[in-house]
């Protein structure tokens, strides 16, 4: 099993609903976020192009954060989802410094926090992650890459896509349809 997510940059309008939905679903404290939206504009008026991406932890197959964690708090869970076990985390910051996507942050409770793909609270119950299920543009696709019929597998078969900083060697599992 290999969980992955695809975000359609052609449909995303950057409304940031994914961010609020994550916050309320996962009790992310006010002032913090596990996901965020990036807008890239290229060109000169009036020859312009814009790409909007809803970003979060890339749940990398070769995760620098898991590698750098001195206690094993950061680990691969079911389907390759990268999780943090709060009571094992010492808050050293190594994983934060190691993440090229800046996807982690120190939770006010001391441990490090990040996107979980809503693995335990939703995905294991057969639901989509909160961000995917709320998105008004339906621009996010989630599922198991090993299952050819999962929404994410199907969309990656038909659309052109990219990942962020593939040259960092992390093999990210967050895909952007372009």
């Amino acid at each position: 099993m290999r969980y992955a997510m695809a975000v359609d940059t052609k449909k995303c309008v950057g409304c940031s609903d994914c961010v609020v939905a994550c916050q309320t679903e996962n009790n992310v404290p006010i002032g913090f976020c596990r996901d965020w939206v990036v807008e890239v504009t290229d060109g000169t008026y009036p020859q312009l192009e814009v790409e909007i991406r809803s970003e979060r932890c890339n749940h990398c197959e070769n995760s620098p954060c898991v590698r750098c964690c001195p206690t094993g708090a950061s680990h691969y869970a079911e389907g390759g989802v990268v999780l943090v076990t709060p009571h094992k985390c010492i808050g050293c910051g190594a994983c934060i410094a190691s993440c090229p996507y800046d996807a982690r942050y120190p939770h006010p409770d001391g441990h490090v926090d990040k996107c979980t793909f809503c693995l335990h609270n939703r995905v294991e119950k057969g639901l989509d992650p909160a961000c995917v299920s709320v998105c008004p543009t339906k621009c996010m696709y989630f599922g198991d890459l090993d299952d050819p019929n999962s929404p994410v597998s199907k969309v990656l078969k038909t659309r052109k896509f990219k990942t962020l900083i593939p040259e960092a060697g992390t093999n990210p599992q967050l895909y952007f349809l372009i």
Partner: protein
Amino acid sequence: MVTSRRQFIKIGALGAGSLALAGSSFNLAKGSSILDKISGAGTGEPLRTPTYCEICFWQCAGWVYKDEDGKIQKIVGNDDDQHCNGRFCPRGTGGVGQYNDEDRLKTPLIRTREGDKESFREASWDEALDYIAGKMRAIAQKHGPECVALFTHGSGGAHFGQMMKAFGSASIAAPSFAQCRGPREVGFLTTFGDIIYSPERIDIRDTRCMVLIGSHLGENMHNGQVQEMSDAIDKGATIITVDPRFSTAAGKSKYWLPIKPATDLALLLSWIHVIIENEWYDKDYVERYTVGFEQLKEHVKTFTPEWAYGITTIDPNVIRETAREMHNAAPSVIVNPGRHVTWYGDDTQRLRAVAILTALLGSWGRRGGYYKPEKLHLPNYPVPPFPEPKRNPTQAYEGKYTLANEVVANGLCDATIPTVDRSCNYKAWIVNGTNLLAAFPNQANTLKAIDALELLVVVDTMPVEITGYADVVLPECTYLERYDMLRNSNHRQPNLALRMPAAEPKYNTKPASWIAQELARKLGLSAWFPWKNIEEMLDWQLKEMGSSLEEMKRIGVKNFPREADDLYFSPGEEVVFNTTSGKIELYSSDMESAGFEPLPVYTAHEEPPEGYYRLNYGRAPMHTFSRTANNPNLTDLMDENVLWVNPKVARLWGLETGQYIKLKNQDEKISTFAIKVRVTERIRWDSVYMVHGFGHNNKKLSRAHGRGINDTEMITRVHIDPVMGGTGMRGNFVTFITDFEKEGKEAEA
């Protein structure tokens, strides 16, 4: 600086007392039986209750979930709801923030005057409502009950409206007409004999081509529309966006027409010209359903793309090409009428052009164009007939705005200011759920009207600016803590949605339904509120529709079958339109008889003087006007607006991204606060852009105070649409002030 005779009172001065009250009401809530009932009585199961959202006018229906401790955790969409299809927008999802906002109004306040000093004192509900009732009675005796006006936006309107009508006043207005969508309703009403409604009757889901004119869908998060636009993109629909700014929608478009601001009507006329000249219009449709085609053809003869190029700066070939795209997609094409369309004062004419184009393409009444919505005939709880008001609100602007089909809110505001030629003025305002100082342009005028009032009652959840000028402030509980009227909306399928409380009202706040009923009781108008409480009234209504309150609590939304299968016209169907001629009026007889151009005419609008830039404003998807600016969840996403500046302009002025500046407009009005510059290629060099709803000037709004600039403050020049009274707000020009004393957010840095 605008000043008011009434001293602006900062509600912040009341900290300690409010806190004490808050504490006691919390204790009260703990022992409440209602709370026990809705929290699942210790089953430990998270419980959900239905609601429909009040953060914006779209009113999506959803579910409020609570955690094991009975705390409101999240709000998600109701899968059966046609407004949201189970998906809330960021503001709806962040609605919990409105409930949790610790800056909320907490207890009734009454203005007191001691010598020169004016302040608010805390009052009980009984005291506050007695005070209001006393004043209202005195005004009714002295001037007549019709001198009380209600300004409202949102669900409270129905309750206070009932009270007003019973009291004897029909002056009930919402800024959503003349400050927003009015021109399009009148433009379409005069053409098709019907309005657009909300949610709009446009069939984006199945469209093959959508034209957006200054409408930045995606940034204005009209939930269902954004969802359908996304579906349309998936299906390969062509989007054509006309906007001087490279909006989010422009980024999704096949064609972006970077038009020179204020020239849209020229482009529309040219499109009409191209479509007629090339015979790209729907001949059968035009012949069967319309009148005035020959006059129109003659009228647009000279409006060639080359003519339009000189005005709009849009390449003539692009004008032809986009017209052909529309023709190819017809009739599944939507020339989107937009929503906030009060721009230049000739807006009804522009929307008439949109309507004409729509008719030529044959998309009204067609799949992928405009469908016919239907709503339920929901009976009202029987009450005695309302007293006939002595004066109609339209008499406030006698002889003006003759085609307005709703009350012109700014007309009532103007009629509050005493003038020699006006025999009657409004003496009292009840303002519910709208911060008129941000909603109306020309704040000085609004404050002059407020000064003339004998009574200003503000009912709101937040200490927005207008509360500072009130005689009585009534704290309404949020939509998550109350019942309201059933949502009965026009849609593809008739439907009802229920809002019920998910929690007890926090602090000493009350639902609008209770406030209106209580006030009516004190005014001796209980006959018009014969129900024990709103639940009884809702249950009666629902039972009339074959449902019940109990059922609706379980399902939240109920869709009903359509009465007639007439979502679209059937081929060759004979249709009678609700116009004078019974046809679609390309040439409008209503306009003509009211003394306006029966066919839209382009007039040039003033351009910014040197060193000045046209002030354009718009929406951000995470905020609704100024009402969400203090919501903790939503300020997390965006806590100030920024000023979009073209790099060429930035270079000229030495502006850099992140720098704070102030603005000065053509009338020497200087912004109260500073705004952060965003240097971006996405804006034309002749205009600047900011999101509306920021720059709050009440310190009690701890997250919103001093964040960014209030665009309304800079809109001192208003171009009134003579057809329907719309307040055109895009004719203001600003320049930059880089040297100023720092305050607000920048001073903190």
